[in-house]
């Protein structure tokens, strides 16, 4: 007879107290329910006892602060009676100075608002655009009006065209420099001297960073070695005073140094002054040149007293000068004065004026036609712009992989001194744009927040060996 089941019989085989008995599954579960939270609790207790707060870090610290990994209290300062230990500016300022932004800035931001720590091995200086846009998106100043664009969100959103090339409102960008240079002419194949070889100048023959060794291909070592009486202020245009200086010391390779006559021009633009001499006059102020000429001619006539007999050279008759007899016997002083005057006529009217703006008694020499031999001209300051964008930082070294004309394309066509050969914002935005396929375009890449001119020195805080142990 086959087995059959009834509910009652099935029920009878169940021990009604079965739920009181433990099973392996229940035992394991209970064990784990006790064990894991207990382990978690033990971990917490151990951290408290060991006073180790590192595990509560919200992320890895930046490389610059890696040495403080064991030094939570260096930034999270415990205050008596206060549970909170937020990192405050005072902790940052123990090690870093953080000079203010512009004095007209309305808002003062805490260090941590821009420099976010515990975000991994990031560059803490790489602040976000939003930090700057807090104010610059709707720029207001404290007690004054701003001359700057007041709605900048990022380099690609609201940033105006660079001031140096900005047009509009009847304004045309112009180079304030007075040194006459035709870039187009110099970028073409040119003859070096009346009978010299044909040469093709490269940008780098004239334009080099200050820290780079000069290219003397077209320079003259004698002029390089010579000292001059004119100062940098005679050459360079004063830098914008509102500009914030950079944080780090310049490497000397960021910007191109002002072009020097001695290193870039002297080889072709000779400063010869008289047929009796091969050398040229110093590249210096007219007074120096005048003294040089007097000295040279004095020395010469002392060595060649027979040269006081002067035979008229028809090729050297000047229209503004009275006709001379065929032969004249001059005193040495007369000879020196005459030769000096001739040399200066040559220099002021032909040689120097080729590049410099000269004036006599405030009148441009070109308009005056002639300069009286006894009157020395005034050389206009060169007004060379050493830093075209004073509010931004730029590093030519970082861009050394590109040809100069990639950005300064106008150099190939510029014929006027007043032409500004700086690239516009569109050129930079070719590479510097948002997104992973582009170069960095955040504000910090070009601009500085802190006014490092107001930097204060910091007293040392940490003891290097103690850092390892967590002590200070």
């Amino acid at each position, binding site marked *: *007879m*086959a*087995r*059959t*089941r*009834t509910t*009652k*019989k*099935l029920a*009878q*085989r*169940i*021990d009604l107290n*079965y*739920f009181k*008995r433990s*099973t392996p*599954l229940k035992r*394991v*579960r209970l064990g*784990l*329910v006790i*064990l*894991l*939270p207990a*382990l*978690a*609790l033990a*971990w*917490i207790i151990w951290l408290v006892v060991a006073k180790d*707060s*590192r*595990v*509560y*870090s*919200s*992320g*890895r610290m930046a490389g610059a602060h890696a040495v403080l990994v064991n030094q*939570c209290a260096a930034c*999270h300062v415990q205050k008596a009676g206060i*549970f*909170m*230990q*937020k*990192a405050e500016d005072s902790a940052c300022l123990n090690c870093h100075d953080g000079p203010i932004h512009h004095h007209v800035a309305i808002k003062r931001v805490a260090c941590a*608002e821009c420099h*976010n720590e*515990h*975000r991994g091995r990031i560059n803490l200086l790489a*602040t*976000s655009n*939003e*930090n700057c846009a*807090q104010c610059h998106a709707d720029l207001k100043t404290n007690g004054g009006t701003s001359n700057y664009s007041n709605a900048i969100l990022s380099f690609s959103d609201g940033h105006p065209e660079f001031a140096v090339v900005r047009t509009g409102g009847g304004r045309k960008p112009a180079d304030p420099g007075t040194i006459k240079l035709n870039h187009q002419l110099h970028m073409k194949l040119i003859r070096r001297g009346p009978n010299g070889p044909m040469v093709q100048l490269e940008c780098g023959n004239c334009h080099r960073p200050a820290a780079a060794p000069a290219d003397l291909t077209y320079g003259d070592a004698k002029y390089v070695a010579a000292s001059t009486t004119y100062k940098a202020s005679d050459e360079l245009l004063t830098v914008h005073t509102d500009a914030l200086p950079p944080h780090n010391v310049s490497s000397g390779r960021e910007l191109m140094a002002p072009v020097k006559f001695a290193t870039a021009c002297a080889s072709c633009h000779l400063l010869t002054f008289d047929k009796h001499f091969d050398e040229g006059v110093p590249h210096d102020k007219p007074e120096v040149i005048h003294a040089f000429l007097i000295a040279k001619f004095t020395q010469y006539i002392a060595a060649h007293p027979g040269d006081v007999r002067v035979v008229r050279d028809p090729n050297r008759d000047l229209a503004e000068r009275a006709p001379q007899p065929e032969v004249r016997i001059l005193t040495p002083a007369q000879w020196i004065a005459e030769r000096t005057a001739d040399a200066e006529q040559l220099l002021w009217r032909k040689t120097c004026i080729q590049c410099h703006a000269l004036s006599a008694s405030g009148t441009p020499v070109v308009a005056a036609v002639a300069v009286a031999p006894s009157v020395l001209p005034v050389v206009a300051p060169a007004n060379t712009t050493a830093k075209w964008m004073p509010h931004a930082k730029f590093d030519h070294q970082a861009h050394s992989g590109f040809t100069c004309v990639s950005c300064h394309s106008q150099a190939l066509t510029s014929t006027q001194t007043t032409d500004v050969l700086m690239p516009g914002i569109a050129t930079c935005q070719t590479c510097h744009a948002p997104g992973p396929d582009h170069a960095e375009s955040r504000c910090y890449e070009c601009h500085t927040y802190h006014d490092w001119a107001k930097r204060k020195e910091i007293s040392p805080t940490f003891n290097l060996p103690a850092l390892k142990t967590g002590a200070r």
Partner: protein
Amino acid sequence: MHMDKSQRAWGLASLMIFVASTVGYIIYALNATPRPSGGSVVGLIFGITGFAFMIFAALLGARKRVPVWRLGRAQAWMRGHLWLGLLSLPMILFHGGFRFGGTMTQVLMWLLIITVGSGLFGAILQNYLPRLMTTDVPLETIYDEIGNVRKLLREEADRDVESVCGALGLSQDREEAAQRAGGFTAMRPLAAAAGARGMVAPAIIAATSTAVAPAPEIILLTDDESAPLRRFYINEVRPFLERPSEHRLILGRPDKAKLAFAGVRTMLPATAHGTLADLEDICDEARQLRKQEQVHHWMHGWLLVHIPLSLALILLGAMHAVMALRY
């Protein structure tokens, strides 16, 4: 818990919360300076919400411990546990801006992921395995009693075999077995108790059964006749009933078991076929109990991960909340 229409309200509500949170997070992330952070106001809101969901989910355990509490229906608690526990993961991811942060937060994130993952795994299993149990284990019993029932089945099988083959020295504690292995219309006569072979033993009617039919007389087989049954029982049936999870045993597989029983049947006289049928039935029940055990382990094994980790998560999460507010 079945994922049926009864889940619709919770599911829709959770979906709406998720969509609203996601939209909120996207807007927040696009405007966060410099990027989303758990310490920002929005980040804190996500964190508090996520942790509250976790706490609620964890309270299900307390609710189960005290079922008499009038704190809503158990089903509602379970649904809340399921959906809010699931929502806690995106909330915490939004809280941390999808970054795992430092040591403590990394531990917490992985605990949360494993806890929610194991919970999801368990929910899926709980959705499908009970149906499997219904179809494949019609003789399902209480899991905790499987060992006991299996023992009773073994004793019943011993008695059945000894009733036709004579004593095999296997039967023990029959009185209790008679009381507790019940449910059968005919308890086979305890021939072994008679201790003699070849004699006719009266069928013993199980006194406790209300559905007991008079059992026919059982004739003990001769040694030769019973040899195939004895051999089969000792070599295959008994080991299977003792260790049903052993893979090498042919009775563990229904198709092979059927063939094996059919083969033995051909070697036995007709008088022993009833006993053999009973043995086959017992083996089938033992197989079902083994299946029930396996299904039960799947259905409840994930809780070994889910519950302890969730408790550790709550503990460390509370610590994180306190310390994050501090630093």
